[in-house]
Protein backbone atom coordinates (compact mmCIF):
# COMPACT_ATOMS: atom_id res chain seq x y z
CA UNK A 1 0.00 0.00 0.00
CA UNK A 2 2.65 2.40 1.16
CA UNK A 3 5.30 3.90 -1.09
CA UNK A 4 8.85 3.87 0.31
CA UNK A 5 9.90 6.91 2.25
CA UNK A 6 6.39 7.28 3.56
CA UNK A 7 7.51 6.44 7.09
CA UNK A 8 10.31 9.00 6.88
CA UNK A 9 7.79 11.60 5.84
CA UNK A 10 5.57 10.64 8.77
CA UNK A 11 8.43 10.99 11.23
CA UNK A 12 9.45 14.35 9.77
CA UNK A 13 5.92 15.71 9.99
CA UNK A 14 5.40 14.41 13.52
CA UNK A 15 8.56 16.25 14.60
CA UNK A 16 7.08 19.47 13.25
CA UNK A 17 3.98 18.95 15.38
CA UNK A 18 1.90 17.74 12.48
CA UNK A 19 0.63 14.18 12.98
CA UNK A 20 -0.53 12.33 9.87
CA UNK A 21 -3.72 10.72 11.19
CA UNK A 22 -2.78 7.38 9.65
CA UNK A 23 -0.30 6.76 12.48
CA UNK A 24 -3.38 5.94 14.57
CA UNK A 25 -4.67 3.24 12.24
CA UNK A 26 -2.22 2.12 9.59
CA UNK A 27 -1.30 -1.60 9.73
CA UNK A 28 2.16 -0.93 8.27
CA UNK A 29 2.91 1.64 10.98
CA UNK A 30 1.74 -0.86 13.58
CA UNK A 31 3.97 -3.55 12.13
CA UNK A 32 6.96 -1.26 12.54
CA UNK A 33 5.89 -0.33 16.08
CA UNK A 34 5.81 -3.99 17.07
CA UNK A 35 9.36 -4.50 15.85
CA UNK A 36 10.95 -1.22 16.84
CA UNK A 37 8.98 0.03 19.83
CA UNK A 38 7.47 -2.96 21.62
CA UNK A 39 10.37 -5.30 20.90
CA UNK A 40 12.88 -2.75 22.27
CA UNK A 41 11.32 -0.67 25.01
CA UNK A 42 10.83 -1.74 28.62
CA UNK A 43 7.25 -2.94 29.02
CA UNK A 44 5.28 -3.28 32.23
CA UNK A 45 4.06 -6.74 33.14
CA UNK A 46 2.82 -6.84 36.71
CA UNK A 47 3.35 -5.60 40.25
CA UNK A 48 4.96 -7.78 42.89
CA UNK A 49 1.94 -7.34 45.15
CA UNK A 50 -0.09 -9.34 42.64
CA UNK A 51 2.00 -12.42 43.41
CA UNK A 52 2.79 -12.22 47.14
CA UNK A 53 3.35 -15.94 47.87
CA UNK A 54 5.83 -18.45 46.42
CA UNK A 55 4.16 -20.07 43.43
CA UNK A 56 1.79 -17.17 42.84
CA UNK A 57 1.68 -16.22 39.21
CA UNK A 58 -0.12 -14.02 36.71
CA UNK A 59 0.03 -14.42 32.94
CA UNK A 60 0.66 -11.22 30.99
CA UNK A 61 1.36 -10.26 27.42
CA UNK A 62 3.83 -8.09 25.55
CA UNK A 63 1.62 -7.38 22.53
CA UNK A 64 0.94 -11.00 21.50
CA UNK A 65 3.78 -12.68 23.39
CA UNK A 66 2.61 -14.49 26.52
CA UNK A 67 4.67 -14.56 29.72
CA UNK A 68 4.20 -16.06 33.16
CA UNK A 69 5.16 -13.66 35.94
CA UNK A 70 5.74 -15.95 38.89
CA UNK A 71 7.25 -15.82 42.35
CA UNK A 72 9.32 -18.97 42.42
CA UNK A 73 9.76 -21.40 45.26
CA UNK A 74 12.65 -19.31 46.57
CA UNK A 75 10.51 -16.19 46.60
CA UNK A 76 12.25 -14.72 43.57
CA UNK A 77 10.11 -13.08 40.92
CA UNK A 78 10.63 -14.53 37.47
CA UNK A 79 9.30 -13.84 34.01
CA UNK A 80 8.96 -17.04 31.98
CA UNK A 81 7.92 -17.32 28.35
CA UNK A 82 4.65 -19.24 28.31
CA UNK A 83 5.97 -21.50 25.56
CA UNK A 84 6.95 -25.13 25.99
CA UNK A 85 10.46 -25.67 24.67
CA UNK A 86 9.35 -28.84 22.93
CA UNK A 87 6.50 -27.97 20.56
CA UNK A 88 5.46 -24.53 21.77
CA UNK A 89 2.38 -25.38 23.81
CA UNK A 90 1.33 -22.83 26.42
CA UNK A 91 2.45 -24.40 29.67
CA UNK A 92 0.04 -22.18 31.58
CA UNK A 93 -3.43 -21.38 30.28
CA UNK A 94 -4.91 -19.71 33.35
CA UNK A 95 -4.68 -15.96 34.00
CA UNK A 96 -3.50 -16.29 37.59
CA UNK A 97 -3.04 -18.86 40.29
CA UNK A 98 -0.40 -20.67 42.31
CA UNK A 99 1.77 -23.48 41.03
CA UNK A 100 5.01 -25.17 42.01
CA UNK A 101 5.37 -26.62 38.52
CA UNK A 102 4.05 -26.01 35.03
CA UNK A 103 3.35 -29.25 33.24
CA UNK A 104 2.79 -29.17 29.51
CA UNK A 105 -0.40 -30.96 28.55
CA UNK A 106 0.88 -32.04 25.16
CA UNK A 107 3.73 -34.43 26.03
CA UNK A 108 4.12 -33.86 29.70
CA UNK A 109 7.38 -31.95 29.93
CA UNK A 110 7.43 -30.43 33.41
CA UNK A 111 9.02 -27.17 34.49
CA UNK A 112 9.62 -25.95 38.00
CA UNK A 113 8.27 -22.47 38.69
CA UNK A 114 11.88 -21.34 38.38
CA UNK A 115 11.58 -22.23 34.70
CA UNK A 116 13.89 -25.24 35.05
CA UNK A 117 12.92 -28.26 33.00
CA UNK A 118 12.69 -31.06 35.53
CA UNK A 119 10.62 -33.70 33.82
CA UNK A 120 10.88 -35.16 30.32
CA UNK A 121 8.96 -38.42 29.85
CA UNK A 122 11.25 -41.14 28.50
CA UNK A 123 14.22 -38.85 28.62
CA UNK A 124 16.51 -41.79 27.98
CA UNK A 125 14.53 -43.65 25.33
CA UNK A 126 13.28 -40.65 23.44
CA UNK A 127 16.17 -38.24 23.75
CA UNK A 128 19.20 -40.34 24.63
CA UNK A 129 19.21 -38.87 28.13
CA UNK A 130 21.33 -36.04 29.47
CA UNK A 131 24.21 -36.78 27.14
CA UNK A 132 22.20 -35.84 24.10
CA UNK A 133 19.52 -33.77 25.69
CA UNK A 134 20.68 -31.79 28.73
CA UNK A 135 17.50 -30.62 30.43
CA UNK A 136 19.40 -27.64 31.74
CA UNK A 137 19.39 -26.23 28.22
CA UNK A 138 15.66 -26.43 27.84
CA UNK A 139 14.17 -24.46 30.69
CA UNK A 140 11.42 -21.99 29.91
CA UNK A 141 12.89 -18.96 28.20
CA UNK A 142 12.97 -15.56 29.85
CA UNK A 143 12.86 -12.20 28.08
CA UNK A 144 16.39 -10.85 27.53
CA UNK A 145 15.90 -8.22 30.22
CA UNK A 146 13.84 -8.18 33.39
CA UNK A 147 13.94 -5.63 36.20
CA UNK A 148 11.65 -3.89 38.63
CA UNK A 149 11.20 -0.54 40.33
CA UNK A 150 8.93 0.02 43.35
CA UNK A 151 7.77 -3.52 42.75
CA UNK A 152 6.67 -2.77 39.20
CA UNK A 153 8.01 -5.60 37.08
CA UNK A 154 9.21 -4.67 33.60
CA UNK A 155 10.79 -6.66 30.81
CA UNK A 156 12.43 -5.86 27.49
CA UNK A 157 12.87 -8.11 24.48
CA UNK A 158 15.98 -6.15 23.51
CA UNK A 159 19.28 -7.48 24.89
CA UNK A 160 20.84 -4.07 24.16
CA UNK A 161 18.18 -2.13 26.02
CA UNK A 162 19.54 0.34 28.60
CA UNK A 163 19.11 -0.62 32.26
CA UNK A 164 15.62 -0.03 33.62
CA UNK A 165 17.07 2.68 35.88
CA UNK A 166 18.53 4.47 32.91
CA UNK A 167 15.39 3.90 30.90
CA UNK A 168 13.18 5.44 33.56
CA UNK A 169 15.75 8.12 34.27
CA UNK A 170 14.25 11.20 35.86
CA UNK A 171 10.76 9.80 35.59
CA UNK A 172 11.45 7.70 38.71
CA UNK A 173 11.10 10.89 40.73
CA UNK A 174 7.45 11.13 39.63
CA UNK A 175 6.77 7.41 39.70
CA UNK A 176 7.27 7.47 43.47
CA UNK A 177 4.27 9.72 44.01
CA UNK A 178 2.05 6.98 42.59
CA UNK A 179 3.83 3.89 43.77
CA UNK A 180 5.83 4.76 46.86
CA UNK A 181 3.73 6.57 49.41
CA UNK A 182 5.32 4.48 52.15
CA UNK A 183 8.35 2.23 52.47
CA UNK A 184 6.06 -0.77 51.96
CA UNK A 185 4.95 0.54 48.61
CA UNK A 186 1.59 -0.07 47.02
CA UNK A 187 -0.77 -2.99 46.53
CA UNK A 188 -2.28 -3.49 43.10
CA UNK A 189 -5.87 -4.66 42.77
CA UNK A 190 -7.35 -6.00 39.59
CA UNK A 191 -6.87 -5.39 36.74
CA UNK A 192 -10.12 -4.81 34.96
CA UNK A 193 -9.57 -5.71 31.32
CA UNK A 194 -11.52 -4.77 28.23
CA UNK A 195 -10.99 -4.17 24.54
CA UNK A 196 -11.52 -0.84 22.83
CA UNK A 197 -11.31 0.00 19.12
CA UNK A 198 -8.65 2.63 19.64
CA UNK A 199 -4.98 2.94 18.76
CA UNK A 200 -2.74 2.48 21.79
CA UNK A 201 -0.88 5.81 21.38
CA UNK A 202 -3.88 8.06 21.80
CA UNK A 203 -4.47 7.16 25.42
CA UNK A 204 -0.76 7.23 26.16
CA UNK A 205 -0.47 10.76 24.75
CA UNK A 206 -3.57 11.91 26.55
CA UNK A 207 -2.37 10.79 29.96
CA UNK A 208 1.10 12.23 29.56
CA UNK A 209 0.04 15.77 28.90
CA UNK A 210 -3.47 16.53 27.81
CA UNK A 211 -4.65 18.94 30.49
CA UNK A 212 -6.53 20.79 27.78
CA UNK A 213 -9.22 18.11 27.28
CA UNK A 214 -10.35 17.93 30.89
CA UNK A 215 -12.65 20.93 31.06
CA UNK A 216 -14.64 19.87 28.06
CA UNK A 217 -14.41 16.10 27.78
CA UNK A 218 -15.15 15.69 31.48
CA UNK A 219 -17.64 18.49 31.88
CA UNK A 220 -20.33 16.02 32.90
CA UNK A 221 -18.38 15.12 36.02
CA UNK A 222 -18.38 18.74 37.12
CA UNK A 223 -22.05 19.17 36.30
CA UNK A 224 -22.97 16.47 38.77
CA UNK A 225 -20.75 18.00 41.41
CA UNK A 226 -18.34 15.10 41.79
CA UNK A 227 -15.22 17.02 41.00
CA UNK A 228 -14.18 20.62 41.08
CA UNK A 229 -10.54 20.44 40.07
CA UNK A 230 -11.32 19.77 36.48
CA UNK A 231 -12.49 23.36 36.15
CA UNK A 232 -10.63 24.95 33.28
CA UNK A 233 -8.83 27.52 35.42
CA UNK A 234 -7.68 24.84 37.85
CA UNK A 235 -6.38 22.80 34.98
CA UNK A 236 -4.66 25.78 33.44
CA UNK A 237 -2.73 26.54 36.60
CA UNK A 238 -1.38 23.01 36.60
CA UNK A 239 2.07 22.19 35.27
CA UNK A 240 3.13 19.44 32.92
CA UNK A 241 6.56 17.85 33.15
CA UNK A 242 8.55 15.44 31.02
CA UNK A 243 11.69 13.63 32.16
CA UNK A 244 13.45 11.07 29.97
CA UNK A 245 10.99 8.28 29.14
CA UNK A 246 7.89 9.74 30.74
CA UNK A 247 5.86 12.79 31.57
CA UNK A 248 2.70 13.85 33.24
CA UNK A 249 0.30 16.49 34.40
CA UNK A 250 -0.30 18.15 37.77
CA UNK A 251 -2.78 20.38 39.55
CA UNK A 252 -1.84 23.57 41.33
CA UNK A 253 -2.61 23.30 45.02
CA UNK A 254 -4.02 26.07 47.21
CA UNK A 255 -1.59 27.72 49.65
CA UNK A 256 -0.62 25.66 52.67
CA UNK A 257 1.96 23.37 54.17
CA UNK A 258 2.94 19.98 52.83
CA UNK A 259 0.42 18.34 55.14
CA UNK A 260 -2.34 20.85 54.49
CA UNK A 261 -1.98 20.43 50.79
CA UNK A 262 -2.14 16.65 50.99
CA UNK A 263 -5.08 16.94 53.35
CA UNK A 264 -6.70 19.15 50.74
CA UNK A 265 -6.72 16.32 48.22
CA UNK A 266 -8.05 14.01 50.92
CA UNK A 267 -5.17 12.08 52.46
CA UNK A 268 -5.46 11.17 56.14
CA UNK A 269 -2.68 12.43 58.39
CA UNK A 270 -1.09 9.04 58.98
CA UNK A 271 -0.55 8.62 55.27
CA UNK A 272 0.77 12.14 54.91
CA UNK A 273 3.15 11.30 57.75
CA UNK A 274 4.50 8.34 55.80
CA UNK A 275 4.78 10.29 52.58
CA UNK A 276 6.79 12.94 54.36
CA UNK A 277 9.17 10.29 55.63
CA UNK A 278 9.29 8.30 52.41
CA UNK A 279 9.74 10.97 49.80
CA UNK A 280 13.01 12.83 49.27
CA UNK A 281 13.32 16.52 50.02
CA UNK A 282 13.17 17.19 46.28
CA UNK A 283 10.00 15.20 46.01
CA UNK A 284 8.37 16.83 49.01
CA UNK A 285 9.19 20.23 47.68
CA UNK A 286 7.10 19.58 44.57
CA UNK A 287 4.14 19.68 46.92
CA UNK A 288 5.51 21.97 49.61
CA UNK A 289 7.27 24.71 47.69
CA UNK A 290 6.10 24.39 44.10
CA UNK A 291 2.65 23.42 45.24
CA UNK A 292 1.78 20.92 42.57
CA UNK A 293 0.02 17.58 42.89
CA UNK A 294 0.62 14.88 40.30
CA UNK A 295 -2.36 13.77 38.25
CA UNK A 296 -2.15 11.77 34.98
CA UNK A 297 1.17 10.51 33.54
CA UNK A 298 2.58 8.13 30.96
CA UNK A 299 5.77 6.12 30.81
CA UNK A 300 6.79 5.38 27.23
CA UNK A 301 5.44 3.48 25.47
CA UNK A 302 2.18 2.29 26.98
CA UNK A 303 1.97 2.52 30.74
CA UNK A 304 -0.12 5.30 32.26
CA UNK A 305 -0.88 6.54 35.74
CA UNK A 306 -3.63 8.63 37.20
CA UNK A 307 -4.11 10.31 40.56
CA UNK A 308 -7.35 12.13 41.19
CA UNK A 309 -9.66 13.08 44.07
CA UNK A 310 -13.40 13.19 43.37
CA UNK A 311 -16.13 13.14 46.00
CA UNK A 312 -17.55 9.72 46.77
CA UNK A 313 -20.60 10.71 48.75
CA UNK A 314 -23.05 13.57 48.85
CA UNK A 315 -21.25 16.68 50.04
CA UNK A 316 -18.37 14.53 51.21
CA UNK A 317 -14.67 15.44 51.05
CA UNK A 318 -12.54 14.52 48.06
CA UNK A 319 -11.02 11.04 48.22
CA UNK A 320 -7.82 10.45 46.26
CA UNK A 321 -7.10 7.29 44.31
CA UNK A 322 -4.29 6.03 42.12
CA UNK A 323 -4.73 3.89 39.06
CA UNK A 324 -2.13 2.31 36.79
CA UNK A 325 -3.20 1.36 33.32
CA UNK A 326 -1.63 -0.48 30.43
CA UNK A 327 -2.55 0.21 26.80
CA UNK A 328 -1.88 -3.27 25.43
CA UNK A 329 -1.98 -3.18 21.63
CA UNK A 330 -4.10 -5.84 19.95
CA UNK A 331 -3.78 -4.33 16.49
CA UNK A 332 -3.50 -0.90 14.87
CA UNK A 333 -7.11 -0.14 15.69
CA UNK A 334 -7.66 -2.15 18.84
CA UNK A 335 -6.24 -1.96 22.34
CA UNK A 336 -6.79 -4.06 25.42
CA UNK A 337 -6.90 -1.87 28.49
CA UNK A 338 -5.60 -3.20 31.81
CA UNK A 339 -6.66 -0.95 34.67
CA UNK A 340 -5.44 -1.49 38.24
CA UNK A 341 -6.55 0.19 41.41
CA UNK A 342 -3.45 1.06 43.40
CA UNK A 343 -3.28 2.01 47.05
CA UNK A 344 -0.54 2.22 49.65
CA UNK A 345 -0.17 -1.00 51.61
CA UNK A 346 -0.15 0.82 54.93
CA UNK A 347 -3.19 2.97 54.19
CA UNK A 348 -6.03 2.60 56.73
CA UNK A 349 -8.73 0.13 55.68
CA UNK A 350 -11.37 2.82 55.54
CA UNK A 351 -9.24 4.92 53.23
CA UNK A 352 -8.66 1.91 51.02
CA UNK A 353 -12.41 1.33 50.79
CA UNK A 354 -13.20 4.93 49.93
CA UNK A 355 -10.26 5.25 47.55
CA UNK A 356 -11.45 2.13 45.72
CA UNK A 357 -14.91 3.64 45.48
CA UNK A 358 -13.33 6.81 44.16
CA UNK A 359 -11.47 4.79 41.53
CA UNK A 360 -14.51 2.84 40.37
CA UNK A 361 -16.51 6.02 39.94
CA UNK A 362 -13.80 7.60 37.83
CA UNK A 363 -11.78 5.06 35.85
CA UNK A 364 -11.91 1.54 34.54
CA UNK A 365 -14.73 -0.13 32.61
CA UNK A 366 -17.44 1.81 34.42
CA UNK A 367 -15.40 4.91 35.28
CA UNK A 368 -17.14 8.12 34.33
CA UNK A 369 -13.93 9.88 33.34
CA UNK A 370 -12.58 7.02 31.30
CA UNK A 371 -15.80 6.45 29.39
CA UNK A 372 -15.65 9.80 27.66
CA UNK A 373 -11.92 9.61 27.06
CA UNK A 374 -12.23 6.30 25.27
CA UNK A 375 -15.12 7.55 23.18
CA UNK A 376 -12.80 10.21 21.77
CA UNK A 377 -10.03 7.71 21.14
CA UNK A 378 -12.15 5.16 19.32
CA UNK A 379 -13.65 7.85 17.09
CA UNK A 380 -10.23 9.27 16.22
CA UNK A 381 -9.03 5.77 15.36
CA UNK A 382 -11.98 5.23 13.05
CA UNK A 383 -11.46 8.55 11.29
CA UNK A 384 -7.76 7.86 10.88
CA UNK A 385 -8.66 4.74 8.88
CA UNK A 386 -9.92 6.73 5.90
CA UNK A 387 -7.63 6.93 2.89
CA UNK A 388 -7.95 10.71 2.67
CA UNK A 389 -8.41 11.47 6.36
CA UNK A 390 -5.38 9.35 7.14
CA UNK A 391 -3.32 11.91 5.26
CA UNK A 392 -4.67 14.85 7.24
CA UNK A 393 -1.96 16.27 9.46
CA UNK A 394 -3.39 16.65 12.94
CA UNK A 395 -2.36 19.57 15.09
CA UNK A 396 0.11 18.90 17.90
CA UNK A 397 1.55 22.43 18.20
CA UNK A 398 -0.25 23.87 21.19
CA UNK A 399 2.23 26.11 22.99
CA UNK A 400 4.24 26.82 19.88
CA UNK A 401 4.26 30.00 17.90
CA UNK A 402 3.48 30.12 14.19
CA UNK A 403 7.17 29.60 13.45
CA UNK A 404 7.60 26.85 15.98
CA UNK A 405 9.14 28.84 18.82
CA UNK A 406 8.04 28.30 22.42
CA UNK A 407 5.19 30.57 23.47
CA UNK A 408 6.15 30.13 27.08
CA UNK A 409 9.32 29.55 29.05
CA UNK A 410 9.85 26.34 30.98
CA UNK A 411 9.00 26.74 34.67
CA UNK A 412 11.94 28.10 36.58
CA UNK A 413 12.73 26.50 39.92
CA UNK A 414 10.87 23.32 39.15
CA UNK A 415 12.10 20.91 41.85
CA UNK A 416 11.91 17.75 39.77
CA UNK A 417 13.91 16.35 36.88
CA UNK A 418 13.16 17.15 33.28
CA UNK A 419 11.39 20.16 31.96
CA UNK A 420 8.08 21.57 33.12
CA UNK A 421 5.61 24.11 31.79
CA UNK A 422 2.65 25.77 33.39
CA UNK A 423 -0.55 26.27 31.43
CA UNK A 424 -1.92 24.60 28.37
CA UNK A 425 0.38 23.20 25.72
CA UNK A 426 1.12 19.96 23.90
CA UNK A 427 4.68 19.94 25.23
CA UNK A 428 4.47 16.39 26.49
CA UNK A 429 2.59 14.95 23.54
CA UNK A 430 5.44 16.26 21.39
CA UNK A 431 8.01 14.79 23.77
CA UNK A 432 6.21 11.45 23.75
CA UNK A 433 6.04 11.35 19.97
CA UNK A 434 9.68 12.40 19.75
CA UNK A 435 10.51 9.24 21.68
CA UNK A 436 8.27 7.33 19.29
CA UNK A 437 10.16 8.83 16.33
CA UNK A 438 13.50 7.87 17.85
CA UNK A 439 12.40 4.28 18.33
CA UNK A 440 11.02 4.13 14.81
CA UNK A 441 14.39 5.33 13.64
CA UNK A 442 15.99 2.54 15.60
CA UNK A 443 17.76 4.73 18.16
CA UNK A 444 18.03 3.07 21.52
CA UNK A 445 20.13 5.20 23.80
CA UNK A 446 18.89 7.66 26.36
CA UNK A 447 16.80 10.37 24.78
CA UNK A 448 17.10 13.91 26.10
CA UNK A 449 13.84 15.77 25.58
Amino acid at each position, binding site marked *: MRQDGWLDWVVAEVREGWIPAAVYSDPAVFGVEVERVFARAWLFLAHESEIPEPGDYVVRRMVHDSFIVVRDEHGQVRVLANVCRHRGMQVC*RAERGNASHFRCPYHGWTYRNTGDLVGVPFHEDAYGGGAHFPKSEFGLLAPPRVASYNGLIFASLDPQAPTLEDYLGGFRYYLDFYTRQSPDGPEFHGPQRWRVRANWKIGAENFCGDTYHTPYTHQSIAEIGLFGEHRATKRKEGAVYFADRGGGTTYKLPPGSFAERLRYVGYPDEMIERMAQTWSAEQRSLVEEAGFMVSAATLFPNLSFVHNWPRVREGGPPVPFVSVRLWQPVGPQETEVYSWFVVDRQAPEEFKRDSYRSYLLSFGTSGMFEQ*DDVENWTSITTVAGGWWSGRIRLHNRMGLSQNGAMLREPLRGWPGPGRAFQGFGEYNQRAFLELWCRYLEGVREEVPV
Partner: protein
Amino acid sequence: MKAATEEVLVRLDGHDPDYHAVVDFLVREAELLDERRWRDWLGMLADDLSYEMPVRVTRAHSLEGSTLPDMDHFREDRFTLQKRVERLETEYAWTEDPPSRTRHFVTNVRVYRAESGELVARSYLLLFRSRGDVREPEWVCAERTDRLRRTEAGLRLVRRVVVVDESVLRTQNLAIFL
Protein backbone atom coordinates in the same frame (compact mmCIF):
# COMPACT_ATOMS: atom_id res chain seq x y z
CA MET B 1 -30.08 -23.47 46.51
CA LYS B 2 -28.23 -21.06 48.72
CA ALA B 3 -27.55 -17.41 48.12
CA ALA B 4 -24.48 -15.55 49.26
CA THR B 5 -25.97 -15.63 52.74
CA GLU B 6 -26.32 -19.10 54.20
CA GLU B 7 -30.05 -18.88 54.74
CA VAL B 8 -32.25 -21.51 53.16
CA LEU B 9 -34.14 -20.51 50.03
CA VAL B 10 -37.32 -22.15 48.78
CA ARG B 11 -37.67 -22.51 45.05
CA LEU B 12 -40.95 -21.10 43.72
CA ASP B 13 -42.62 -22.90 40.88
CA GLY B 14 -44.03 -21.28 37.80
CA HIS B 15 -47.54 -20.69 39.02
CA ASP B 16 -46.58 -19.00 42.24
CA PRO B 17 -47.75 -15.38 41.95
CA ASP B 18 -44.38 -14.21 43.26
CA TYR B 19 -42.67 -15.99 40.40
CA HIS B 20 -44.64 -13.92 37.96
CA ALA B 21 -44.11 -10.77 39.98
CA VAL B 22 -40.37 -11.28 39.74
CA VAL B 23 -40.37 -12.08 36.03
CA ASP B 24 -42.51 -9.01 35.54
CA PHE B 25 -40.05 -6.94 37.56
CA LEU B 26 -37.06 -8.08 35.51
CA VAL B 27 -38.78 -7.61 32.18
CA ARG B 28 -40.06 -4.15 33.10
CA GLU B 29 -36.58 -3.24 34.30
CA ALA B 30 -35.10 -4.32 30.97
CA GLU B 31 -37.66 -2.18 29.19
CA LEU B 32 -36.76 0.88 31.26
CA LEU B 33 -33.04 0.40 30.71
CA ASP B 34 -33.41 -0.12 26.97
CA GLU B 35 -35.61 2.98 26.75
CA ARG B 36 -33.10 4.93 28.85
CA ARG B 37 -35.75 5.77 31.44
CA TRP B 38 -33.21 5.76 34.25
CA ARG B 39 -35.25 7.77 36.73
CA ASP B 40 -38.01 5.22 36.58
CA TRP B 41 -35.38 2.54 36.92
CA LEU B 42 -33.92 4.16 40.05
CA GLY B 43 -37.43 3.98 41.40
CA MET B 44 -37.21 0.19 41.32
CA LEU B 45 -34.17 0.15 43.60
CA ALA B 46 -34.17 0.02 47.38
CA ASP B 47 -32.39 2.84 49.22
CA ASP B 48 -29.93 0.39 50.73
CA LEU B 49 -29.23 -1.21 47.37
CA SER B 50 -25.94 -2.94 46.67
CA TYR B 51 -25.16 -3.39 42.97
CA GLU B 52 -22.10 -5.52 42.26
CA MET B 53 -20.33 -6.87 39.22
CA PRO B 54 -17.05 -8.56 40.10
CA VAL B 55 -14.24 -9.03 37.58
CA ARG B 56 -14.00 -12.52 36.17
CA VAL B 57 -10.68 -14.36 35.75
CA THR B 58 -9.60 -17.62 34.18
CA ARG B 59 -8.27 -20.10 36.71
CA ALA B 60 -7.02 -23.63 36.26
CA HIS B 61 -9.18 -26.75 36.78
CA SER B 62 -12.50 -25.21 37.86
CA LEU B 63 -14.64 -22.09 38.10
CA GLU B 64 -13.69 -21.78 41.77
CA GLY B 65 -12.24 -18.36 42.42
CA SER B 66 -13.09 -17.14 38.94
CA THR B 67 -14.50 -13.91 40.35
CA LEU B 68 -12.00 -11.53 41.94
CA PRO B 69 -12.77 -10.69 45.57
CA ASP B 70 -11.04 -7.32 45.35
CA MET B 71 -11.91 -5.92 41.94
CA ASP B 72 -15.24 -5.17 40.32
CA HIS B 73 -16.67 -3.57 37.22
CA PHE B 74 -19.41 -2.18 39.42
CA ARG B 75 -19.71 -1.93 43.20
CA GLU B 76 -22.45 0.64 43.55
CA ASP B 77 -24.90 1.98 46.04
CA ARG B 78 -27.80 4.32 45.50
CA PHE B 79 -25.60 7.39 45.58
CA THR B 80 -23.19 6.22 42.91
CA LEU B 81 -25.93 4.89 40.65
CA GLN B 82 -27.74 8.18 41.12
CA LYS B 83 -24.64 10.06 40.07
CA ARG B 84 -24.20 7.85 37.03
CA VAL B 85 -27.75 8.56 36.00
CA GLU B 86 -27.35 12.28 36.58
CA ARG B 87 -24.28 12.20 34.39
CA LEU B 88 -26.06 10.40 31.58
CA GLU B 89 -28.71 13.10 31.79
CA THR B 90 -26.20 15.91 31.20
CA GLU B 91 -25.41 17.09 27.69
CA TYR B 92 -21.82 15.99 28.07
CA ALA B 93 -21.97 12.23 28.49
CA TRP B 94 -20.19 11.80 25.17
CA THR B 95 -19.81 8.07 25.30
CA GLU B 96 -23.59 7.68 25.15
CA ASP B 97 -24.13 10.53 22.70
CA PRO B 98 -25.33 9.25 20.31
CA PRO B 99 -26.86 6.64 22.60
CA SER B 100 -26.34 2.92 22.31
CA ARG B 101 -29.29 0.90 21.15
CA THR B 102 -29.38 -1.84 23.76
CA ARG B 103 -31.50 -4.91 24.22
CA HIS B 104 -31.49 -6.73 27.55
CA PHE B 105 -32.63 -10.28 26.82
CA VAL B 106 -33.70 -11.89 30.12
CA THR B 107 -34.13 -15.67 30.30
CA ASN B 108 -33.76 -18.67 32.65
CA VAL B 109 -35.41 -16.95 35.59
CA ARG B 110 -35.36 -18.90 38.87
CA VAL B 111 -37.14 -17.48 41.90
CA TYR B 112 -36.65 -18.37 45.56
CA ARG B 113 -38.29 -17.20 48.76
CA ALA B 114 -36.00 -16.45 51.68
CA GLU B 115 -36.96 -16.98 55.30
CA SER B 116 -37.00 -13.22 55.62
CA GLY B 117 -39.78 -13.17 53.05
CA GLU B 118 -37.50 -11.46 50.56
CA LEU B 119 -37.30 -12.97 47.11
CA VAL B 120 -34.12 -14.09 45.40
CA ALA B 121 -34.05 -14.24 41.62
CA ARG B 122 -31.39 -15.67 39.39
CA SER B 123 -31.59 -14.93 35.71
CA TYR B 124 -29.49 -15.06 32.57
CA LEU B 125 -28.83 -11.83 30.72
CA LEU B 126 -27.82 -11.45 27.10
CA LEU B 127 -27.07 -7.83 26.32
CA PHE B 128 -26.93 -6.64 22.72
CA ARG B 129 -25.43 -3.21 22.14
CA SER B 130 -25.39 -1.38 18.82
CA ARG B 131 -24.00 2.12 18.41
CA GLY B 132 -23.71 4.37 15.41
CA ASP B 133 -23.56 2.84 11.97
CA VAL B 134 -19.96 1.75 11.49
CA ARG B 135 -19.01 -0.08 14.68
CA GLU B 136 -19.76 -3.78 14.96
CA PRO B 137 -22.37 -4.57 17.62
CA GLU B 138 -21.20 -5.80 21.01
CA TRP B 139 -22.45 -8.53 23.36
CA VAL B 140 -22.29 -9.09 27.10
CA CYS B 141 -23.48 -12.34 28.68
CA ALA B 142 -23.98 -12.77 32.40
CA GLU B 143 -25.93 -14.33 35.21
CA ARG B 144 -27.58 -12.03 37.72
CA THR B 145 -28.52 -12.94 41.28
CA ASP B 146 -30.98 -10.43 42.64
CA ARG B 147 -32.53 -9.95 46.05
CA LEU B 148 -35.94 -8.30 46.01
CA ARG B 149 -37.88 -6.79 48.89
CA ARG B 150 -41.63 -6.38 49.05
CA THR B 151 -42.92 -2.87 49.70
CA GLU B 152 -46.37 -1.35 49.42
CA ALA B 153 -45.08 0.27 46.26
CA GLY B 154 -44.11 -3.13 44.91
CA LEU B 155 -40.86 -5.04 44.67
CA ARG B 156 -37.57 -3.21 45.15
CA LEU B 157 -34.09 -4.41 44.23
CA VAL B 158 -31.98 -4.74 47.36
CA ARG B 159 -28.95 -6.45 45.96
CA ARG B 160 -27.70 -7.49 42.56
CA VAL B 161 -24.63 -9.51 41.76
CA VAL B 162 -23.78 -9.71 38.07
CA VAL B 163 -21.42 -12.53 37.15
CA VAL B 164 -20.21 -11.73 33.66
CA ASP B 165 -19.03 -14.56 31.40
CA GLU B 166 -15.94 -12.91 29.96
CA SER B 167 -12.71 -12.06 31.72
CA VAL B 168 -11.92 -9.45 29.07
CA LEU B 169 -15.00 -7.44 28.19
CA ARG B 170 -15.61 -6.98 24.47
CA THR B 171 -17.56 -3.75 24.94
CA GLN B 172 -16.15 -0.21 24.93
CA ASN B 173 -17.29 0.51 28.46
CA LEU B 174 -20.03 0.00 31.00
CA ALA B 175 -21.80 3.32 30.49
CA ILE B 176 -24.90 1.15 30.62
CA PHE B 177 -26.48 -0.92 33.38
CA LEU B 178 -26.92 -4.68 33.46
